């Protein structure tokens, strides 16, 4: 029953792709990838789990609004904290972290619109996998962009004087990298889903076979 409830009715990778699209313009290095990935992941988990507490009294649209509002509040607080801390990596990205609001709104669509009547634990587990896949993909994406765009990784030059390709910093290339990453992960995801489906069909087939054998042995009264 739990497995039936927690199965996605939308491919979660598409949501991850859309979330990545909204922040990809501001992620050019691995540092930025880690910062944006971590912030999005933590805020998304926190907000969706908090809003899951009012799941029974708020409809899906209201829950989506509450998640967005909570995220906005956290982002405003973070902006003040980052300003106070005055670290270079944080102050550099001070004006762009607001885009995390849209990434979180996109990621929260899965539990808000496709998972109804679930407990906080289910929300957490479902969101955890979405958020982890988002984090891994954004880190891989930022590594590709930094290596191709700057010829370095974490600020360390990889290929001597090679300063990177100009096109790697352009929007079209970033979208292209996201599309390729999503196609690759979707290939793996679909293969796993197909395997799961084949396994479920096999189990059903064996159940029918056992039922048939029992019926033949005990007459028509045999049950599984």
């Amino acid at each position: 029953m739990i497995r039936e409830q927690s199965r996605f009715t939308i491919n979660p990778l598409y949501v991850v792709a859309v979330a990545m699209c909204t922040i990809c313009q501001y992620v050019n290095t691995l540092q930025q990838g880690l910062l944006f990935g971590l912030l999005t992941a933590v805020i998304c988990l926190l907000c969706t789990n908090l809003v899951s507490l009012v799941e029974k009294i708020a409809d899906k649209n209201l829950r989506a609004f509450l998640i967005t509002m909570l995220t906005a509040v956290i982002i405003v607080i973070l902006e003040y904290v980052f300003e106070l801390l005055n670290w270079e990596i944080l102050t550099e990205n001070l004006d762009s972290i607001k885009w995390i609001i849209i990434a979180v709104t996109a990621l929260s669509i899965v539990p808000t619109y496709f998972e109804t009547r679930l407990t906080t634990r289910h929300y957490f587990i479902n969101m955890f996998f979405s958020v982890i896949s988002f984090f891994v993909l954004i880190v891989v994406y930022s590594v590709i962009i930094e290596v191709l765009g700057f010829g370095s990784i974490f600020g360390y030059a990889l290929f001597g004087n090679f300063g990177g390709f100009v096109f790697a910093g352009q929007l079209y290339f970033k979208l292209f990298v996201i599309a390729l990453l999503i196609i690759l992960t979707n290939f793996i995801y679909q293969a796993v889903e197909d395997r799961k489906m084949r396994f479920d069909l096999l189990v059903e087939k064996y159940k029918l076979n056992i039922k048939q054998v029992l019926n033949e042995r005990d007459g028509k009264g045999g049950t599984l």
Partner: protein
Amino acid sequence: MANGLLCLTLLVTSNVMLTNGFGALGLQRNKSNLWFVLYNTFTMILVILACSSLYALAYVYLLIPYNLERLGILIIVMFSAISNFGVLEITKLVNKEMYYYYDATYSFVVNMGLTIGIMFVIDYSGSFGESMVYACLVSAAYAVATLLFAFAYSRMHNQKISRIFRPVPITILTMSIMAMIIYAISISI
């Protein structure tokens, strides 16, 4: 004229195209209904203009005098949520078919995210009039991008395309190619 075109192409190339990526989720359902696409685009433009004008006023008379610019994010989220709730309720009252499409394509959350994204793009540091011109340009860019994609949506659902590619990955690939073309046009201008 050339400046306006350059501005439009740059806007389409940069953030509007990105925020439009958010709308790729709508591809999961019946986004290919042209009347719904037109209705949704029209309501979105109204919402963007209304929210931008209200926010521009709040920015000039409330946020700057009291040095509360950082709280602008909260006001943007509030305005976009309220206006999209308004559109949802009006659609429910006026046209049941449009409401069905609105609900089936998760348009509330998609439009709310889009409104927030588009309002982030608009520069409010100038006067009220400048902000509104900017808002009009962004709305136009949004409409152009949405309508361009609307005609491609039905083709992206083609069964001949491998299911690994459709519909969101191929949409992002199309966005990438469109961004490349628009970038090339903006450079040549």
